[in-house]
C-alpha cells in the first residue's frame, strides 16, 4: 500500500489594529450599522484617490520583522482586477510586485523537534465588503464598512504536513502578532482567516500533486477537519479514481463535514496585476527601519525566562502572564509602580483574569494599565483599601473603560470618590464594635469564655456595618480589646 504525504501551505489574512482604513480616513470598525463607516474613496467612486495609511506600513514592517523576513526597502501597491459586488472599484489594491516583507520563517514545535515554516511573503492589502443575501427580495445587499479595512496576508511555503503542524503554525503566528500589537488576530471575530492550499503526493516524492484551495477558514477546529477530509478525498481520487482532481477553489461546509467545488481557480494572469499609479512608492530609509526594529517586543519565551530567572516568579505564574502581551504590560507596569512581583502576578492571574472571563473578554483586552493596578495593590498592602474593596475597585475600573472613559491617573483619589477607602476614623470603628457586641451579648460571652471561633461572627457583623471599608487588622485588634474589657 502506498504511503502518502500531505503538503499544505497557508495564506493567512490578518486584520490590522489601526484607527482608520488603509487608503481613506474612515474608521476601521466594521461592527457598526451597514455603510456608516464609508466614504466615496472606499466605495470606489470614480475619481477618488487613495492615500496610504502610515501605520499600516509600520504594522506590515513589524509583522515582517516578527516573522524573520527581509523588508523590501521600496515597497509598492498594485491593482488586482476581478469583478464582485463586495469590491466596488472592481479591483483590490494589494501588493504583487514588491510586497513589504519576503523570505521569513516561523519556528513551530513538533514531536520531532523544532521545525521552521518558511514565509514566502507578507503583503498589505485592503479587505472587501460584506454581502448579505436577502431571502425576501432575492437580491444581494452590500455593506462597505469592511471595504478598505487594512489587512496583511502572510503566505507560507508548502512546508506544513498535517493538521497538528497547521495548528501549531497558526497559534505561533497569533501569539507573535498579538505580542507585537499588529492585530488581535481573533479567528472567532474574523480578524484572522486562513486559506488552506493542500495537495497529496506519494511519500518521498518531490513532485507536488494537484492543489486545491479552501478559502476563508475561520476556526482552527474547522481547518483540522477540512485538512483531514481533503487529504482523504485526494488519496481516494488518486488510488481509486473516484474523481478527477483539478486545481480549484473549494468551500468547506463544517456542519456536513465536506468540501465542495466553488470555482476553477483563477491564475495570476487572470487578475491582470499592474502597478497602482495613484499610490506613490514607499521607500523605507534606515531611520524608519531602525525605529520599527527598536519597537519590537521581547518574544513570549524571552519574557518567560526573564520573569522566572530575574524576577523570581514560579513557572506557573510566568506562563500565565506570558500568554498575553496585555498581561505582561500590566505586570511590568504594576511593578514599576512599586507592586511586589508576586502580588502583581496574583492580581492579574486571579482577579483581572476572573473579570475578563466573566465579561467574555480576552486577556489582550485587559483595560487596566499596570500603573493603576500598582497603585491599587499599594492601597491594599498599606491597609487603606480592604482586599474585597480592592476587587470592587478593579471591577469599577473595568466599568470605566467599558464606558469609553479614561482610567483615572490617581487611583487613591478615585477610590475615595467611589467611597471604597477604609475608614481612618477609629472612633467610628469603636462605635461599630460596641454596637455589635451590645447586639449579640451571648456570642460575646462565648468568646470571653474561651471559644475563640465566636470572634468570627462578631467580626463579620462589624464588617457588614462598615461595608468592608476598614483595615481588617485594626478592626480585629479593636474588637478583641473591647471583648477583653469584659
Amino acid at each position: 500500500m502506498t504511503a502518502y504525504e500531505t503538503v499544505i501551505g497557508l495564506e493567512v489574512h490578518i486584520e490590522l489594529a489601526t484607527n482608520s482604513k488603509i487608503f481613506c480616513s474612515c474608521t476601521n470598525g466594521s461592527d457598526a450599522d451597514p455603510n456608516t463607516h464609508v466614504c466615496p474613496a472606499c466605495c470606489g467612486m470614480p475619481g477618488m484617490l487613495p492615500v496610504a495609511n502610515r501605520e499600516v506600513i509600520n504594522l506590515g514592517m513589524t509583522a515582517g520583522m516578527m516573522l524573520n523576513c527581509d523588508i523590501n526597502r521600496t515597497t509598492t501597491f498594485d491593482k488586482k482586477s476581478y469583478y464582485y459586488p463586495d469590491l466596488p472599484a472592481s479591483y483590490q489594491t494589494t501588493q504583487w510586485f514588491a510586497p513589504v516583507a519576503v523570505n521569513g520563517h516561523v519556528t513551530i514545535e513538533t514531536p520531532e523537534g523544532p521545525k521552521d515554516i518558511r514565509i514566502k511573503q507578507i503583503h498589505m492589502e485592503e479587505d472587501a465588503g460584506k454581502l448579505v443575501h436577502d431571502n425576501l427580495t432575492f437580491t444581494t445587499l452590500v455593506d462597505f464598512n469592511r471595504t478598505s479595512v487594512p489587512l496583511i496576508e502572510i503566505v507560507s511555503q508548502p512546508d506544513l504536513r498535517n493538521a497538528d503542524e497547521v495548528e501549531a503554525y497558526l497559534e505561533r503566528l497569533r501569539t507573535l502578532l498579538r505580542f507585537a500589537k499588529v492585530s488581535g488576530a481573533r479567528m472567532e471575530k474574523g480578524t484572522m482567516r486562513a486559506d488552506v492550499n493542500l495537495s497529496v503526493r506519494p511519500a518521498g516524492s518531490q513532485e507536488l500533486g494537484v492543489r486545491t484551495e479552501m478559502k476563508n477558514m475561520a476556526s482552527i477546529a474547522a481547518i483540522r477537519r477540512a485538512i483531514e477530509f481533503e487529504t482523504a478525498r485526494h488519496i481516494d481520487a488518486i488510488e481509486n479514481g473516484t474523481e478527477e482532481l483539478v486545481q480549484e477553489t473549494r468551500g468547506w461546509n463544517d456542519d456536513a463535514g465536506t468540501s465542495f467545488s466553488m470555482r476553477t481557480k483563477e491564475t495570476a494572469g487572470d487578475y491582470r496585476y499592474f502597478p497602482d499609479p495613484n499610490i506613490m512608492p514607499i521607500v523605507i530609509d534606515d531611520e524608519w527601519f531602525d525605529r520599527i526594529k527598536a519597537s519590537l517586543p521581547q518574544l513570549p519565551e524571552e519574557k518567560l525566562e526573564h520573569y522566572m530567572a530575574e524576577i523570581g516568579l514560579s513557572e506557573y505564574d510566568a506562563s500565565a502572564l506570558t500568554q498575553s502581551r496585555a498581561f505582561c504590560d500590566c505586570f511590568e507596569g504594576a511593578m514599576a509602580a512599586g507592586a511586589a512581583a508576586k502580588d502583581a502576578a496574583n492580581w492579574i492571574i486571579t482577579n483581572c483574569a476572573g473579570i475578563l472571563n466573566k465579561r467574555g473578554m480576552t486577556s489582550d483586552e485587559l483595560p487596566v494599565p499596570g500603573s493603576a493596578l500598582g497603585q491599587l495593590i499599594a492601597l491594599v498592602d498599606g491597609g487603606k483599601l480592604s482586599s474585597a474593596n480592592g476587587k470592587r475597585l478593579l471591577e469599577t475600573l473595568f466599568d470605566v473603560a467599558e464606558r469609553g472613559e479614561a482610567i483615572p491617573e490617581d487611583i487613591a483619589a478615585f477610590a475615595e470618590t467611589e467611597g471604597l477607602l477604609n475608614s481612618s476614623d477609629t472612633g467610628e470603628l469603636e462605635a461599630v464594635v460596641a454596637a455589635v457586641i451590645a447586639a449579640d451579648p451571648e456570642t460575646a460571652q462565648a468568646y470571653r469564655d474561651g471559644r475563640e471561633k465566636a470572634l468570627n461572627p462578631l467580626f463579620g457583623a462589624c464588617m457588614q456595618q462598615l461595608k468592608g471599608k476598614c483595615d481588617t487588622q485594626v478592626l480585629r485588634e479593636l474588637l478583641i480589646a473591647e471583648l477583653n474589657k469584659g
Partner: protein
Amino acid sequence: MDRETLVKLEQLNQLSLTSQEQDEVLAFFAAREADWEALAAIDTENIERMVHVRPMTNVLREDVASQPFDREDLLVQAPESMDGYWQVPQVL
C-alpha cells in the same frame, strides 16, 4: 490577440460582445501588432524596473479616523438600496 483570448477577457470583465464587436476589437489589435512587436524587441535585460513615472515617494497620511460621509448621500449613488445597504442582483 486571438479570438480565444478575447473571449477569456470578456468573461473576466463580465462583458458580452457581439461577433461584430469582437471583429472590431481584433482588427484594432491586429493593426497595432507591429507596435507590440517593436516594444517586445527592446532589450530590457539588466534594466531596473521603473517603480513609478513620477519622482515622488511616501505620500502617506497619519492614522487618524475622521467623520464618515453621510450614508444617505452615498446611497443616492446606488442603483438600488434597501435598509442602508446597496442592493444588487443576487450573487450568492
